[in-house]
């Protein structure tokens, strides 16, 4: 799978949208896509300055694709925002820049490294920068004057996310208050907020991991190579395969080997592990995901293994 440089939204098109097809039975993906497009259009219409949080991961790539479909043939009427931890895979940074250029969108990058360099943030003893993203994210939202921030979070990812609204109100500190969420009824989204507050928007809340992969395959959406099986120098730690690199160096007792691996989620090199896999195309990834017995975050994310409430606590703090 190479990075697609042709800016058409969907060269093949879903079966249900084929011209003249009499069969109106809508599939689950048709309905989920329509729901996401409706949400994106609502937010673009009702907010002053939305932005799309874009990490280059499959979920934010999916949201971007849906945004392009929502406004076709017009350009997406908002830009992209990325919080660069400084521990990203170089492939992801390249993919991010190429994608922004391909869609002709402004890209704002907030760098955790800047905060560490000038002392606003300190490196954690465990070396992970995942939780350090929150401050630069909140600052970038305030500095950019963004009142709506699209994200690719899904409710099937985590128990706390299963409880979060599609439009999730955040206070001036970016915090989520799970006990006072607005009820969300029918398709009537209430994005009203006070000055200083903003709203996080999750258009693919109702997609599952498998839905996202099925949708990517159906739509032919370009993804970073990391998701596909490739040879890489890795070492084993805590039951995960870690890439050797500047931000994840093996200890003396850890042996580096060359393995065929792929990533199920794309996060920092310092907290995202790979799985051994031969799945080098979408079809084989789909088969692998469908047969899996472990959640994507449980499999490969050290940041989610901390406690049952790891995600809830980070969200209350302003995290996605």
């Amino acid at each position, binding site marked *: 799978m190479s990075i697609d440089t042709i800016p058409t939204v969907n060269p093949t098109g879903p079966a249900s949208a*084929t*011209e003249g097809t009499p069969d109106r039975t809508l599939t689950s993906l048709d*309905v989920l896509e329509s729901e996401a497009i409706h949400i994106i*259009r609502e937010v673009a219409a009702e907010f002053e300055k939305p932005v799309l949080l874009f990490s280059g991961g499959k979920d934010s790539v999916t949201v971007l694709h849906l945004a392009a479909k929502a406004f076709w*043939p017009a350009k997406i009427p908002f830009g992209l925002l990325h919080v660069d931890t400084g521990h990203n895979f170089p492939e992801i940074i390249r993919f991010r820049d190429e994608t922004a250029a391909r869609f002709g969108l402004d890209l704002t990058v907030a760098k955790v490294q800047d905060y560490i360099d000038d002392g606003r943030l300190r490196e954690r003893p465990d070396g992970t920068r995942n939780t350090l993203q929150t401050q630069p994210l909140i600052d970038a939202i305030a500095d950019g004057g963004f009142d709506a921030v699209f994200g690719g979070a899904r*409710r099937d990812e985590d128990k706390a996310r299963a409880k979060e609204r599609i439009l999730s109100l955040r206070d001036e500190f970016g915090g989520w208050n799970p006990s006072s969420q607005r009820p969300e*009824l029918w398709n009537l989204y209430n994005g009203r907020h006070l000055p200083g507050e903003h709203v996080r928007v999750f258009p693919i809340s109702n997609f599952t991991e498998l839905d996202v992969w099925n949708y990517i395959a159906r739509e032919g959406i370009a993804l970073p190579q990391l998701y596909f099986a490739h040879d890489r120098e890795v070492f084993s730690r805590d039951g995960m395969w870690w890439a050797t690199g500047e931000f994840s160096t093996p200890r003396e007792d850890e042996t580096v080997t060359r393995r065929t691996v792929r990533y199920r989620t794309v996060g920092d090199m310092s907290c995202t592990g790979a799985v051994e896999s031969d799945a080098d195309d979408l079809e084989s990834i789909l088969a692998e995901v469908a*047969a899996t017995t472990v959640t994507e975050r449980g*499999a490969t994310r050290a940041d989610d293994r901390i406690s049952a409430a790891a995600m809830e606590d980070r969200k209350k703090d302003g995290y996605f």
Partner: protein
Amino acid sequence: MTTTPTTPAPNPASASQSATQPKTLLRFATAGSVDDGKSTLVGRLLHDAKAILADQLAAVTATSRERGFLGGEFDFALLTDGLRAEREQGITIDVAYRYFATDRRSFILADCPGHVQYTRNMVTGASTADAVVVLIDARTGATEQTRRHLTVVSRLGIRYVIIAINKIDLLDFDRQTIEAVEDEVRTLAAEIGLEVPHLIPISALAGDNIATTSANTLWYEGPALLELLETLPSTEADTADREPFRLDVQTVLRPQGGLAPGLDAEEFRDYRAVAGQITAGQVRLGDEVEIHPAGIRTTVTGIDTADGPLDSASAPLSVSLRLADEIDTARGSVIAAAGTLPPPRRDLRAEVFPFTAEGLRTGQRVLVKTGTTTVKGIVTITSRRNLETSTLEDAEELAGNDIGLAQVRLSAALPIPDFRVHGPAGAFVVIDLQTGNTLAAGIHTPEENS
């Protein structure tokens, strides 16, 4: 509620294949309290559909052990209670959404807690549901809470109400006792004015009549719960042929200001389309439509999507429509099959469901959001529904979690249909003018409330 888990085996090759096949979607909600075994039912459905993965099961089993569940027993509620406060207090606070699929269908389950703020949670969960499963403990039969739950689903016009009579294993599957409970439930449903719903005797704990019909209830001739859920038509699929076409305009797409990269500027020089999600019915090329508020008729000359033009499209697809005439259309405009648009009105006659502690009172000034329009409104409460007796009583204000009737005077006339007849286009939310909080849900029911 405990049970002994069996580790879900990796899906066989055939199941993996089916996982990637296109499926239809059904959204349903579950209502009932922990005492009725609702968490157990949700856990059971996820488990039997193999939607609980090994690491989730391991985490829940470990926590169950910490909590004193011995011998590998398993607290299903831990799977669904996602918030720290819920786990600490051992209660479910908020609606949670769960996802699972069988070979035939994908499901979105809105898990509505029964104890705290039950009306708010039920109305929220049920608002997007094609079906609602109401749980009853077979040993206690229909309770006050059952009456409340059935009243809410009845008022909300849920198309498919399934009553699951749970814990029949504790009655030794005794047909006579279970059928007595069924009769009681039918009588209650009739009193509330609810059509006789589907009644299924189940044991969520033991799995009877969940995925397949049980050998313990050979006298029961209906389908198992999952079998029924797999075959119910979704609301949109079921009504697309009957309901008149309606689309609430979200935005107007005019790429002159900025064309998507790679498209031919010449080809789209005069392009203009109104974008929205089809609320009801279906639209075909060449259909005559009428437009609110312009009050003008025109013809549909294009049904566009990013994947290419369509000959027809039905709810709930998101599309863009090109129209034959240059008519003033903007966000909040409504496009409907000619001759079917309800006369615009400035007074809603509504059933309202206040959610917050402040409730809703006569004279209150609010915002009303319906479709893609938000207008100002003034509320007049006329009555409260007594949920113990299912009767209406005069009232001038409603407390949080009450249900009642109200008139809402709007600052602009809107073509809002009768919710009972036409569904979600007749629904609205009430928003606080100052804080922006969602105060209440409402449905326009002019026939029952004039």
